[in-house]
């Protein structure tokens, strides 16, 4: 709505810029006319159009959190090799869009010299989708960028190569709010609490809406209670599953615990429909400690999974498909992860996950 102030009109409700103005000419010309694509080598693919035109994409990993200078740097590179046209991907990678094949190698050389990893395509380890973590979020049970950096340093070769049995998509959520829905990934790492929140009894009334707080609990562990004459809440610690949702709606129920916050690892999920239906990741490791700056326990666990997967999966099998074929008991045996009562689903619909048959590899 117009808000005349010093002669300028306040701009609102305009949405994004028109995408058509940001497409390279080769894309505008061949929009909707693409015929096929080929992956030429890790991080490089060509799309061929019905017109015969060829669009080359060079993909590099990025950190998602980037400086303005990074943005200027990639802008300069894009100017040099592809007329300034680039895009980002759903997994926070960066793609340069070239119409000149001869620019591919010089571009890659320059990118590598600047420390950009070229890859993340085909049968590789993709960039890890992640959240803000300790960098910028009040509900985080762990840091995100740090864990991602630690993992990608360790498994760098899987990103820049394409020798895994199939693509591996890892994701990280610093708490159970799971911004980014990491729960349908080959390997999902999730920040977890394992102690109930602390009730700041005399602050509940001032800071929170008690009915909303009670409703926020997935297991009905939050109850109203008068404490010191003031309306407040209590937590039934027998029921509490430490999800932290009450804290999300009520600042007077902090749950962060430096000793007991940690990370869980879930495996075997996928979003794509190819060969098998999309499915959530399932619990492999319930809790590993937060051990910044490198989280060695998490790295070891992920290494165990990747090695077992590399050794055992057939070509084209995603992690979940490999596990379904060999069976979960064998997965736990090979990896050495302990199967505990925590692994058995006791939430709503948990009973649907039991094995109602005689099927067991003996």
């Amino acid at each position, binding site marked *: 709505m117009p808000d005349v102030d010093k002669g300028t009109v306040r701009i609102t409700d305009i949405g994004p810029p028109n995408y058509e103005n940001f497409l390279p000419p080769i894309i505008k010309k061949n929009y909707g006319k693409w015929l096929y694509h080929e992956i030429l080598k890790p991080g490089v693919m060509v799309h061929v159009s019905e017109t015969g035109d060829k669009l080359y994409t060079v993909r590099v990993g990025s950190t998602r959190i980037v400086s303005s*200078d990074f943005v200027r740097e990639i802008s300069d590179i894009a100017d040099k090799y592809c007329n300034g046209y680039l895009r980002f991907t759903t997994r926070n990678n960066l793609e340069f869009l070239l119409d000149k094949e001869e620019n591919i190698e010089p571009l890659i050389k320059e990118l590598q010299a600047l420390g950009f990893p070229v890859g993340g395509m085909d049968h590789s380890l993709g960039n890890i989708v992640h959240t803000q973590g*300790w960098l910028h979020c009040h509900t985080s049970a762990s840091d995100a960028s740090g864990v991602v*950096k630690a993992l990608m340093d360790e498994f760098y070769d899987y990103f820049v190569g394409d020798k895994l049995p199939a693509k591996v998509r890892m994701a990280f959520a610093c708490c159970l709010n799971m911004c980014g829905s990491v*729960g349908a990934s080959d390997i999902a790492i999730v920040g977890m609490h394992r102690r109930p929140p602390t009730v700041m009894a005399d602050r509940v009334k001032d800071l929170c809406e008690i009915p909303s707080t009670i409703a926020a609990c997935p297991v009905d562990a939050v109850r109203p209670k008068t404490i010191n004459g003031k309306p407040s809440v209590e937590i039934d610690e027998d029921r509490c599953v430490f999800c932290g949702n009450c804290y999300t709606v009520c600042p007077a129920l902090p749950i962060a615990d430096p000793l007991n916050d940690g990370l869980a690892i879930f495996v075997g999920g996928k979003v794509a429909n190819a060969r098998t239906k999309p499915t959530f990741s399932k619990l492999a490791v319930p809790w590993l400690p937060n051990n910044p700056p490198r989280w060695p326990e998490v790295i070891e666990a992920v290494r165990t999974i990747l090695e077992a997967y590399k050794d055992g999966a057939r070509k084209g099998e995603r992690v979940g498909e490999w596990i379904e074929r060999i069976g979960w008991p064998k997965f736990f045996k090979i990896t050495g992860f302990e199967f505990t009562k925590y692994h058995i689903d006791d939430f709503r619909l948990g009973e649907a996950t039991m094995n109602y048959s005689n099927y067991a590899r003996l």
Partner: protein
Amino acid sequence: MAGTKHKTPLLDDLKEGKWPSFVKELERAAQKSPRTDDLIGLLEKSYRDHIPHWKHGGMAGVKGYGGGIVGRFSDSPEEFPGTKEYHTARINQIEGFFYTSDVLRKLADICDEHAGGLFNFHGSTGDIQILGFKQEEAEELFQKCAQLGFDLGGSGSALRTPSCCVGQARCEWANYDTMHVTDNLTREFQNEIHRPTFNYKFKIKCAGCPNDCIASGARSDLSIVGVWKDNIRIDQNQVAEYAKKFDIKKYVVDKCPTHCMDYTDGKLTIDDSNCVKCMHCINSMPKALRPGLQKGAQIRIGAKVPMVQGPRLGFILVPFYDINKDKEEDYAFLKDLIRKIWDFWDEYGTNRERVGELIQRVGVGNFLEAIELEPLPEMVEHPRANPFIKFEEYLVADEEEESKEG
């Protein structure tokens, strides 16, 4: 040390290694931004303490909008004054995440001048995020972005910024123009994006094919996925070329979830009436196989994160509709369906209840009736096994009436 002011031995460790270092990015921004310098110090404190140092709550926003700005206030403002207020702005991305160097540089200048010199490309929903400004700076940051053509994105109990895959801009498998739809819906629903009126968040994502490179089936309340109805187009010569490279029967035919393919004597045949459009065969032989020509979209509903009733993927609501024809009518069918879903959710949903949870609570049948869609077997894995059917029709012993609605 990272940055210039604070000792950061733990973060310094993360400057080593082959993968790009986010600490170096923070440092680059900190060279120009004292408040980002303090952000680095605050993060190091979290690394020491193993807990976040951000306060819960606190409001931040621009006039007239109920979203787009996410307030962040640190709990250690005396020690790190630059983080006393260090908010995030969600900036509506260009569809398909396409940019030019020119517009990126302008965004970089805005970020330096009006914030802490830090971006997310992109946030989880799909917006660009600009980090590191105070409430009093929000309006100018917003207007500078708007003058460049970028509105704020959604946050709070609103429609979140729709996003999409690269679609027809680059992908031969896109069955409809994902960028066009996303752009169109974003403009149609500006009010719902900027002025929260829902029980909770609502996300829309558009994928060109069931490979779902935007993860819409897991990450959006309403997932629009392109499919085709007719036969997969086969180039037998190209199939023969692939046959030289790998065992087509083992890696393609045998992997078909409905076993509708055959490869005998060098000829590939597909019983398309049994094809469920999983994309595996097309993925495996992009030069040989292409989606059919009768293209459209599927709509899935209800995906969400674990809170509160558990995680959900989207289930099929509309198995096929001609979205390309709908495009000629400005996506009237799609918008009408979306509004019906919102009306139902407004009417019957509770606070912080996602659409998927509401449907689960009231029953899919009731939901379908309300939004005027017929129940279809494509919506279910299989029909119910339990016999607890809530019949609505029954007979009454009456001379004149044979049957009566319950």
